[in-house]
């Protein structure tokens, strides 16, 4: 998909994220908006995953370790044809499979996530299975920056490095905020790049809310044969809506009717500029 269409999709996706959170009355607004451009580029331009090949193993894999940003994932999977908008509209309703964290009950979702620090180990196991089978498929996983305090993340890094998993691509949604406040105040995790480098990863920094930067970065993977890759994607929490950006209270705040209307207007204005 070309860059312009991807940019338009990102705006449409933001509208859907806000719509489903507003209508269902719950959701992780800030984190979903920060990672949506990454998911957009992955599903529409990088990964070989579709409703047609999903039940098989000869494809790429994606594990969203930061499970709480599930509204972004639901939105993209819906657009890719894994289920209908009508199915998605059941979000958070009694007996719906569309709940606040991903589960395998939802078509297109590979693994239950939500408890942080789990996804990387699972992605390592998947990447190992591809190496054992001598397949060239890649395994992508998206982690939050606050999630890097979980020790199990670093356990998984040692295995990724030991087994030279150059088919593993770890993406960090580096939006600098977590539920309590700034990551560097809650529990400092910098220097993230040096930490991953010392664990045997090839690291690259990019703007995780810039479609062309993301496209360029994903063209370069694997960065180096025999080494797992980490992409530290600098993002803005709440990206795309002026009054939600960089606001701690929007971690899982639900927009009021007025806020929802203003957000949609902002996004429509940006969309109109493409016409």
């Amino acid at each position, binding site marked *: 998909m070309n860059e312009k269409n991807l940019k338009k999709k990102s705006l449409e996706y933001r509208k859907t994220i806000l719509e489903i959170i507003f209508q269902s009355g719950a959701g992780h607004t800030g984190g979903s908006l920060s990672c949506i451009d990454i998911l957009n580029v992955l599903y529409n331009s990088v990964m070989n995953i579709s409703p047609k090949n999903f039940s098989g193993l000869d494809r790429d894999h994606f594990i969203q370790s930061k499970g709480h940003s599930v509204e972004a994932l639901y939105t993209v999977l819906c657009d890719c044809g894994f289920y209908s908008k009508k199915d998605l509209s059941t979000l958070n309703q009694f007996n719906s499979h569309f709940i606040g964290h991903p589960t*395998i009950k939802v078509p297109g979702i590979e693994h239950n996530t939500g408890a942080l620090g789990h996804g990387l180990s699972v992605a390592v196991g998947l990447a190992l*299975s591809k190496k054992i089978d001598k397949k060239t498929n890649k395994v992508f996983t998206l982690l939050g920056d606050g999630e890097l305090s979980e020790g199990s993340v670093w356990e998984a890094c040692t295995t990724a490095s030991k087994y030279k998993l150059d088919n593993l691509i770890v993406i960090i949604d580096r939006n600098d905020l977590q539920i309590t406040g700034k990551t560097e105040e809650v529990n400092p995790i910098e220097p993230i790049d040096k930490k991953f480098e010392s664990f045997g990863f090839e690291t690259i920094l990019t703007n995780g809310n810039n479609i062309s930067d993301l496209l360029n970065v994903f063209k370069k993977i694997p960065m180096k044969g025999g080494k797992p890759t980490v992409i530290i994607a600098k993002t803005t929490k709440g990206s795309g809506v002026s009054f939600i950006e960089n606001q701690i209270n929007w971690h899982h705040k639900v927009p009021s009717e007025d806020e929802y209307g203003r957000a949609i207007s902002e996004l429509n204005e940006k969309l109109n500029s493409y016409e």
Partner: protein
Amino acid sequence: MNKIGKPNLEIFSETLLSEAKKNKDIIVVTSDSRGSGKLVPFGKELPDQIIEVGIAEQNLVGVSAGLAAGGKIVFGVSPASFLTARSLEQIKNDVAYSNCNVTLIGISAGISYGQLGSTHHSIHDFATLRAINNMTIVAPADNFEASEVIKQAVSYNQPLYIRYGKKPMMDIHPAGTKFKIGKSILVKKGEDLTIIATGETLQRAYLAYEILKENNIHCSIISMHTIKPFDKETFLEFSKNSKAILTIEEHSMFGGLGECCANLIAQNKIDTKLKILGIPDEYMINGSQSDVLDYYNMSPQKIVEISKDLLNK
């Protein structure tokens, strides 16, 4: 007198090696547990089918789940104590709820580590794993059960936990016995009392049976190797037709075999007596596995006394 066989853990590793030679999709994951899991020969013979993650049990379970998601038949092997406590969240989310085809092998389970103490004991594993949906829990008793469960695990295709001890075990089952995960085995049949044991305590129940028989007390002995899904059908049949039930387990009295039986008796309004033998809710006494089990009333002689008391004899 029945023959004393090998430690069940050795039987596990021999059986797994033999199965893995026939099926290259079988992958073993260890956490510096190759030696204690008796997997050194496996590592030498099938180096491409063993993944070593170092001392990182959470990662062991997550990596096992990922390998299973990638189509492998995975055996994650680690001391039962660490595997089922430290990695409990990974077992819950990554194996059970994500429905990954992983068999978790809890080595040196129960109080097999003896004097190494409470950090190394797993008297909580039945309780914690029973509360997780989509987990099967098996505690094999003798070499036969220890081997059969691995053969079945290869094609079981759903989350499974098996705990193994490390002492040589007496052969209990005669040739021709059938083993199926989820179906208990009737070892002896008698009308006075039913003794239900799980895992390595079956040997103690069996020795008690011999003494009771000499005393003209006839009991049934059931090997309840599968703790979940529980063989309700057999249990209900025997509990309705026995004067008393005695359960024996190398586990806390909370949340294991005994409580499972108590629950079924209460829910089904069965009029029988029940006595649960296990580790009480106290800081467990230190000692060898055998001495500790004896101390907590699980010696064959004590089982005989308790049985007589239950029958007012």
